[in-house]
């Protein structure tokens, strides 16, 4: 099956074509069959490939499946070829698996939307591009997927384009991502310039010939990381992600939580061979990740929109993944990426279920006491929250604990301290979300009648809840030989050439686990205290530190700062360039050239007299010139 792995993106592509071209002509049922069905086929095919890969002899791994020569020009060659190795398989499983569940969920969630077929065609196109992104065997093909998911993200954020805020958010996401893409593109150019190829295998093989810390590798990795900060919403380019919540909730779940935003993490992990040669870049990645994790978590403390809380929590969790990459724990990053995909998709879809049941209400201050109205949603949301808070034995516990542990042992005690503080805040704001939504008094309007969602929505939720519960068991770090995930991924990941391979005692590891559990527990306890026991407490706290509260409630005013320092100057500059430079200088030059060409054209036209004699004369002059030229030498 691996030889036909190119079918994996082809299935959803067919789905996209059917829904996109014929969407208006075929029935809604057909659309609901084609959209999710095509992704389901992909998932099945990926499972088959995975099974086959496990049974391949070690010599045959990894597999590169050549499809066709895409561009050949001089020494430059880009193939359309797919790389099947542990890393891409994990990503494929996550993308197609979670994607499939979200497609099914969408059938229920989007059922009454007038643009039903358009929605599914975009969603399918997104899956196509995401699959290309993770399967590509070279940077250029990866960039195709990279741009493709960016486009689909734009289309889906602005899906309800008649809403001003939605189309603004789509535009914002697109523009901010362009900045990152530019960095990524520069990185690719530099890679081709340095290595003479864009193929992963060839680039990584040559990377070892450079000295550790060489300037060019540092610049390349930093450029690539700029791309990652755009796509994965890290400081300074994270501002688009919270606004992206204007899209339909399943889109937020699939694109802006579970898959697309992890592209940057995937790319950094894929390029681990380059990053380990550039310690400065590693530090940058770690610090940016850490700062993002902390800052986004703190913003999450004060948000009242249920989806915004989750959005900031996504930014924060992505920060943890980059922190892991930055300290060299690429496997831990991918592990967290996977578990995060499960529980964040679950949380978003759960919040979607809440919003669905509340007739579109997203403000948590108008919810409360939904526990009995939506028992299934409540149960799965609780599972997801326990997972993200890092409570044993839920999936997030293992992955987050591994990151914290690695931050301490391979990084810096400061990393660990700040990351742990972030984890505490995570536990706090997530339980704040649970308590505000499902507990306490009901604060919804009397005309709202909350109800549980239909099975087509709850079944994917239950499956994701199961995954969020058991998904962590593949990577139990404690006992040698139990960390299946680690062993499986090892061939795809380069390691920091470290001299100090310290073996930590088991007691130390267990202790650290207990500490991180304790940290989460404190966060939960505070949330419980503030939102269940003494509901008047939040107001008091806010009143005590009004400045700090305003600061985080207004997201540190980052949007405003960007507006004042970047957006407005560019806008004013553009207006100036448009009115002064463009309309006067450039248009003047263009019009001038055009009129010159025009006049020239009239002159030449006069040569076209229509008289055969004149034409023959022209030929004769040509002959005279040519023979004269040759006879004259």
């Amino acid at each position, binding site marked *: 099956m691996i030889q036909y792995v190119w079918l994996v993106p082809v299935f959803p592509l067919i789905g996209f074509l059917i829904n996109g071209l014929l969407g208006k002509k075929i029935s809604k049922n057909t659309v609901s069959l084609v959209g999710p069905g095509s992704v389901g086929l992909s998932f099945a095919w990926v499972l088959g490939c995975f099974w086959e890969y496990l049974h391949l002899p070690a010599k045959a791994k990894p597999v590169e499946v050549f499809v*066709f020569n*895409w561009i050949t020009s001089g020494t430059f060659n880009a193939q359309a070829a797919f790389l099947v190795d542990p890393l891409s398989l994990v990503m494929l499983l996550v993308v197609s698996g979670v994607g499939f569940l979200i497609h099914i969920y969408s059938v229920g969630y989007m059922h009454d939307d007038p643009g039903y077929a358009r929605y599914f065609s975009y969603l399918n196109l997104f899956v196509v591009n995401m699959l290309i992104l993770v399967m590509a065997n070279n940077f250029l093909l990866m960039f195709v997927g990279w741009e493709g998911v960016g486009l689909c993200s734009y289309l889906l954020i602005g899906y309800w384009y008649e809403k001003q805020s939605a189309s603004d958010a789509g535009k914002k996401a697109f523009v901010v991502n362009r900045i990152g893409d530019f960095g990524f593109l520069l990185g690719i150019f530099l890679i081709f310039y340095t290595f003479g190829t864009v193929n992963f295998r060839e680039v990584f093989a040559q990377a070892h010939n450079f000295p550790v810390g060489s300037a060019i590798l540092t610049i390349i990795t930093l450029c690539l990381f700029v791309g990652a900060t755009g796509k994965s919403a890290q400081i300074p380019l994270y501002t688009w992600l919270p606004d992206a919540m204007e899209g339909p909730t399943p889109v937020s779940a699939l694109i802006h939580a579970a898959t697309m935003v992890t592209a940057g993490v995937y790319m950094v992990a894929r390029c681990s061979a380059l990053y380990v040669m550039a310690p400065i870049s590693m530090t940058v990645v770690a610090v940016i990740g850490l700062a993002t994790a902390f800052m986004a978590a703190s913003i999450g403390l004060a948000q009242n929109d249920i989806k915004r809380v989750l959005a900031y929590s996504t930014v924060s969790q992505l920060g943890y993944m980059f922190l892991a990459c930055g300290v060299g724990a690429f496997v831990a990053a991918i592990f967290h990426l996977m578990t995060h995909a499960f529980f964040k998709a679950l949380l978003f879809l759960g919040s979607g279920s809440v919003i669905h049941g509340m007739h579109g209400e997203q403000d948590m201050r108008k919810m409360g006491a939904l526990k009995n109205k939506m028992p299934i949603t409540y149960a799965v949301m609780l599972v997801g929250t326990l997972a993200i808070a890092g409570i044993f034995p839920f999936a997030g516990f293992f992955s987050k604990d591994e990151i914290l542990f690695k931050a301490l042992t391979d990084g810096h005690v400061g990393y660990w301290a700040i990351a742990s503080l972030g984890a505490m805040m995570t536990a706090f704001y997530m339980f704040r979300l649970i308590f505000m939504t499902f507990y306490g008094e009901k604060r919804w309007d009397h005309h709202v009648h909350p109800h549980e969602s239909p099975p087509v929505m709850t079944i994917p939720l239950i499956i994701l809840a199961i995954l969020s519960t058991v998904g962590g068991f593949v990577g139990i770090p404690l006992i040698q030989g139990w960390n299946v995930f680690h062993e499986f991924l090892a061939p795809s990941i380069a390691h920091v050439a470290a001299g100090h391979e310290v073996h930590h005692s088991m007691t130390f590891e267990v202790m650290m686990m207990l500490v991180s559990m304790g940290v989460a527990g404190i966060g939960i306890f505070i949330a419980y205290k503030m939102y269940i026991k003494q509901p008047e407490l939040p107001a008091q706290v806010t009143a005590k530190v009004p400045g700090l509260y305003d600061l985080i409630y207004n997201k540190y005013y980052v949007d405003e700062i960007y507006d004042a320092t970047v957006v407005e100057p560019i806008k004013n500059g553009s207006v100036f360039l448009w009115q002064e430079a463009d309309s006067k200088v450039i248009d003047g030059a263009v019009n001038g050239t055009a009129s010159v060409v025009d006049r020239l054209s009239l002159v030449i036209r006069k040569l076209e007299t229509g008289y055969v004699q004149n034409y023959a004369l022209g030929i004769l002059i040509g002959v005279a010139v040519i023979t004269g030229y040759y006879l004259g030498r």
Partner: protein
Amino acid sequence: MSIDIPTICLTNIGPLITLSVAGLLLLLFDAFSGKAMKKAHFHQFSLVAVVIALLQTVWLWNRQTTDFSRMIYVDNFSFFFNVIFLLGTGISIILSVHYLENYRKNYGEYYALMLFAAVGMILMAAGGNLVIIFLGVEILSIPIYILSGLFREDLKSNEAALKYLLLGAFSSAFLLFGIAMLYGGTGTFYLADLAAFIKKSGMNGFTYVGMGLLIVGFGFKVSMAPFHMWTPDVYEGAPTSITAFMSVGTKAAAFAAFLRVFLEVFPTVRMEWDLLLWVAAVATMTVGNVTALAQTNIKRMLAYSSIAHAGYILVGLIAGNQLGATGILYYLLAYTIMNLGAFGVVIAVARKKDNYLNIYDYAGLGFQYPGLAAVMSVFLFSLVGMPPTAGFLGKFYLFSAAVEAGYIWLVIIAVINSLISVYYYLRITVIMYMQPAEADLGPVAMTPVVNATLIISALAVLLIGIFPGSIFQLAMNSVKIFGS
């Protein structure tokens, strides 16, 4: 005394035999069959002949050899061009049917002449001897003279035919004289022997003049400046289907001969002809593009633009390297499809008796006939050379070959010229989509076959633009015969 009877293998000229026999049969049918069956079956018969010839061509793939006492080459170069010619002929036949019926000119000889012209093209690409190439030129030209004047009652058509005949004969004389000069200088007509002679003993006065006159002869056929002036008048006056056929077929055939002669016989003395062609290429592109700007008749505009395209292709010839030759082959294939496609739309929109040939007749087409406007846009974008169309990659290969060979300024001028072409090509798109129709366009008759042809052509333009790999490889294999 013994007579050597040269061994010949008829399958090597299979396509030629098929096309000639089919042409002759068509003439006989036309003379001896009843009126009813004429209209329906001539084009089908000729299409079948083209398809058979295409199959026979495929059979010839990778046969690197010569035949008929080295008179013709049977190699991948001629294979590739055969495909271009047959494709061009086939599409032109499909586009002709409805057009001719409108004029009540659905004659058998029309199709027979087209097939004969195709025979001439194939000979030009396959000729291993200058005499054969000249023969090819004439076999190609004479049917085209007749076809240009097909509408005998139409003054313009008559004018086109007469002009083309007079000037064609004029230039043929130079071509022939050049061949004679080369014979005088070297004592042979064979390309291979000519090449060996020039490599060994260098150039002399005769060969210089001969080479110069070959440039004149081929230059006329590809409409290279200053031998291009016939092009707009002939293209405008000839029946549109013939204009389409001429603009791709004649040009491709002439370039095939041009390329083969200059890269096989004169590669060692490239310094002697590159400057001349450099000047001619720049003049050709510039004249073509600048004049096209001022045209409002779409046939005339496409005529001038086809002059400009000849200029681009000359860039590849001047580069004189493998990539340049590959680029020419790729570009000619792309050009055949996109130009025929554009002409197909022109034929469809012009309707009865070419009433709608002004570019402003296209106003509102995007709304009334979105499909037609969409395929036209694809062809126009490709003619401009925008990614991801075939036209873009064709230009890219041609220009990068010239950069590789060091002709930076030539490429800069070529790119500026492409920019100029954006204006007049995209003006059509703008008119189609952004101007409301002044009056109802009325029905545009489309047969399913024409529809399918246009759609497939548009898809092909996109497809070989996005996935150029296999075509590029094929073209590269086809020019391996040129050593350098």
